[in-house]
């Protein structure tokens, strides 16, 4: 019917065609998903209708100035930290050759399996005044030895960068691997040194991927409460929690959260605009082993040491500590229910990841075929859920669904005379859309970055060779998108595994997961006992990481 569905490129409106708003296939999907996300956001925004002047005046005078400054430094620090770690490691793993590279290529993802607040607790426990490191130093050098404070701006930035860099790493590695050594060679043939070629050509070419990964890390940072509270480092989220739990005003909390959404939306727009004129293509085939830069012996050794160091600090040390704690509480806490927790975690994460990645793909296609501001806006809105503190979004989602549920119950009662109570509550029909709203950004950014490579000329070339429609999707598009899709799947899977507030609020009775188990232990301060579910969570997280590792041959 619609020519756009068979020859979308030819009819796609040009950028900036504001006036030509026509709903059709792809775009309707984008709008549909955006609406799903917008409803809970509107619930949050609706708080603006009931101003809490007294609370705002208090927060503005005594709380916000310090918090905003703290948040600013944290965001800046984590941005720098994740980009430096993520990009350098991705470059080594994707383009260079050094001993252990094959292992590190997937192992560097491992820190993603650890919830950030768990790492935070381990590091504060190890390095604070009362921890074993300082206690030992005091025993040897006396009571007055100086040691950097771990519960400080530097400490929280370091820990968050170490747990969040995999977002940048995963996306940047994907970019470098497909961009190949050729870009660098081209730069060198034009007189650039290898170093300046990296900074002038390879890095800018990988920018959408790096920016996408960094945005994910920053959105996570802005939404975080668990990690910063272990450091007692007050950020904007602290004010949100204070308004809600301390001052008993969810509306003031929601107003603060609305402000956060607006800021994130603005940043996303700026980031988007700054690269809207750029076009990205793929350097033909993926990099082959023979195309790699073989590092000199010294540099290779340095690369191995660097990777080992990052992996050790970000993953091995915390996991070793957790394993030790688990061992101590194993007899007391482990029972057959852990199999059930594990199964629930895996099932929820798996289904949510598939659903979210599918929606992300649809959104990315919608954006590709409709380069108008309406679609772009819908896509942007659809991915905002990632930046909201979990509990605030959870309430927004819950309120919206409870309204629908109550509406259904009332109508069934009135028209069919059936007493149903709440039908949807505590079912997958609530949980899955809730996860989708929360994590669509994590699925979308990698897919969208990959989509940048599917230039219009690829479609044109494909059609001119007689390959169109589904065959083109399967034989031309899928191979290009595959890496991005896998990345998105893994990110969402890991995020859902670690997610707490939405899981807590929407799970069916008795449907506990490993993350719920961690909550049960930590909320009464029993961090050592939380180690057992945390270790189980890490072990379960290895499954998707191995899965990606196995397919790394394709996307290496």
């Amino acid at each position: 019917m619609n020519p756009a569905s068979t020859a979308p490129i030819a009819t796609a409106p040009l950028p900036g065609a504001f006036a030509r708003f026509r709903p059709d296939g792809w775009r309707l999907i984008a709008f549909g998903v955006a609406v799903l996300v917008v409803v809970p956001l509107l619930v949050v925004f609706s708080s603006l209708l009931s101003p809490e002047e007294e609370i705002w005046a208090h927060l503005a005078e005594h709380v916000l100035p310090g918090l905003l400054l703290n948040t600013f430094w944290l965001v800046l620090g984590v941005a720098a930290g994740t980009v430096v770690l993520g990009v350098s490691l991705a470059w080594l793993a994707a383009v260079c050759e050094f001993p252990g590279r094959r292992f590190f290529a997937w192992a560097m993802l491992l820190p993603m399996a650890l919830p950030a607040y768990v790492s935070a607790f381990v590091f504060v426990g190890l390095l604070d005044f009362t921890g074993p490191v300082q206690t030992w130093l005091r025993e040897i050098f006396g009571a007055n030895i100086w040691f950097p404070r771990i519960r400080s701006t530097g400490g929280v930035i370091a820990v968050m960068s170490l747990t969040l860099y995999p977002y940048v790493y995963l996306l940047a590695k994907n970019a470098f691997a497909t961009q190949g050594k050729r870009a660098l060679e081209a730069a060198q043939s034009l007189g650039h040194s290898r170093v300046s070629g990296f900074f002038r050509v390879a890095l800018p070419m990988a920018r959408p991927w790096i920016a996408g990964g960094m945005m994910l890390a920053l959105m996570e940072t802005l939404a975080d409460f668990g990690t910063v509270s272990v450091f007692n480092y007050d950020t904007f989220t602290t004010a949100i929690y204070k308004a809600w739990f301390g001052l008993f005003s969810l509306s003031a909390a929601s107003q603060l959260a609305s402000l956060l959404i607006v800021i994130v939306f603005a940043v996303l727009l700026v980031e988007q605009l700054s690269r809207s004129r750029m076009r990205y293509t793929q350097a033909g085939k993926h990099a082959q082993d023979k195309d790699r830069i073989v590092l000199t012996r010294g540099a290779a050794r340095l690369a191995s040491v660097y990777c080992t160091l990052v992996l050790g600090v970000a993953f091995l040390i915390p996991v070793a500590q957790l394993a030790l704690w688990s061992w101590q509480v194993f007899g007391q806490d482990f029972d057959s229910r852990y199999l059930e927790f594990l199964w629930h975690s895996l099932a929820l994460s798996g289904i949510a990841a598939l659903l979210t990645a599918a929606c992300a793909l649809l959104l990315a296609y919608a954006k590709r075929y409709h380069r108008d501001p309406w679609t772009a806006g819908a896509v942007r809105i659809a991915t905002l859920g990632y930046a909201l503190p979990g509990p605030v979004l959870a309430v927004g989602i819950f309120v919206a669904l409870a309204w629908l549920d109550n509406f259904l119950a009332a109508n069934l009662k009135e028209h069919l005379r059936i007493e149903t109570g709440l039908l949807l509550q505590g079912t997958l029909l609530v949980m899955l859309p809730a996860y989708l709203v929360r994590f669509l950004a994590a699925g979308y950014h990698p897919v969208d970055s990959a989509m940048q490579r599917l230039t219009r000329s690829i479609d044109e070339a494909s059609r001119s060779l007689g390959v169109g429609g589904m065959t083109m999707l399967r034989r031309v598009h899928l191979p290009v998108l595959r890496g991005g899709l896998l990345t998105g799947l893994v990110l969402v899977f890991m995020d859902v595994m670690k997610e707490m507030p939405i899981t807590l609020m929407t799970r069916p009775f008795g449907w506990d997961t490993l993350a719920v188990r961690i909550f049960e232990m930590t909320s009464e301060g029993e961090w050592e006992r939380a180690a057992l579910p945390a270790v189980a969570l890490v072990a379960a997280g290895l499954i998707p990481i191995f899965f990606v590792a196995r397919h790394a041959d394709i996307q290496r």
Partner: protein
Amino acid sequence: MRKNSVFTLLLGAFLSLPAFADEVVVYSARIEQLIKPMFDAYTKETGVQVKFITDKEGPLMERLKAEGANTPADMLITVDAGNLWHAANEGLLRPVASKTLEANVPAHLRDPQNHWFGLSVRARTIVFNTQKLKPSDLSTYEDLADPKWKGRLCMRTSKKVYNQSLVAMLIAEHGEAKAEQIVRGWVANLATDTFPDDTKMMEAIAAGQCDVGMGNTYYYGRLMEKKPALPLALFWPNQQGSGVHVNISGAGIAKHAKHEKEAIRLLEWLSSAKAQNMFADVNMEYPANPGVKADPAVAKWGDFKHNPINVAKAGELQAAAVKLMDRAGYK
């Protein structure tokens, strides 16, 4: 016909099942391992099933609010009086007229309008390093604001509701101006940044980073059980005056409870002699029922005088306390 059966199947997978008669549904901010043993015992004794879901207080209350008249919840359990006061204030709980509850729960540990009842007592007291201090060095919470404690005090963050309740009680007793002066004094005496939890704070006191702090007794109990050699002891402050600050873990019946009778029966059972020890001892807390003795491990810390102000004050004044602590620079 066949269409119908497929429909029913799908219905089963994606829709909640209706409530059964012989059950009670509980929303609990008290974590699973601290309530499940009681519920299991109750089911064994009475045959009544207890379905429960755990979460933080804030989301649980929003959940009750959003579900409205259709909520499946019969009972709300929290671990502090402030949130129960708030739930009652929001109209989420219904008053319960029960002679049993009134007899089992002392007046200052329940809502004056009987919307909620304390089930265990949590005492927030002074913890000190026995190598650096003698009990005679200590007297009251207020005294810790004295400049003689400069650089010797450790505190948990003001974001924890236990400290908010403590300061709310100071406001109730001394008025805002005096309470703020006390809190400012504490802040001026801090040896280091405030801690994210009581255990970390107590470890810092034991390690000599500071001499003294304020914490809940069960954190002390748990820590000493694990590391009995730590040079830590409890001190009961304000014994000449108003007494030790206590909070409760307690419960109320949801306004739209579907199993009101069953829920009240469960609540009465939880306050009874046979359940009280289980409820309190599992976390080294004090039973709310004065007729029930505390666990021997807890009892050996000694008897003390409770602050007899109704714990509802903690809820009423919590927002004021939070603002006061912000003004005083207590992070």
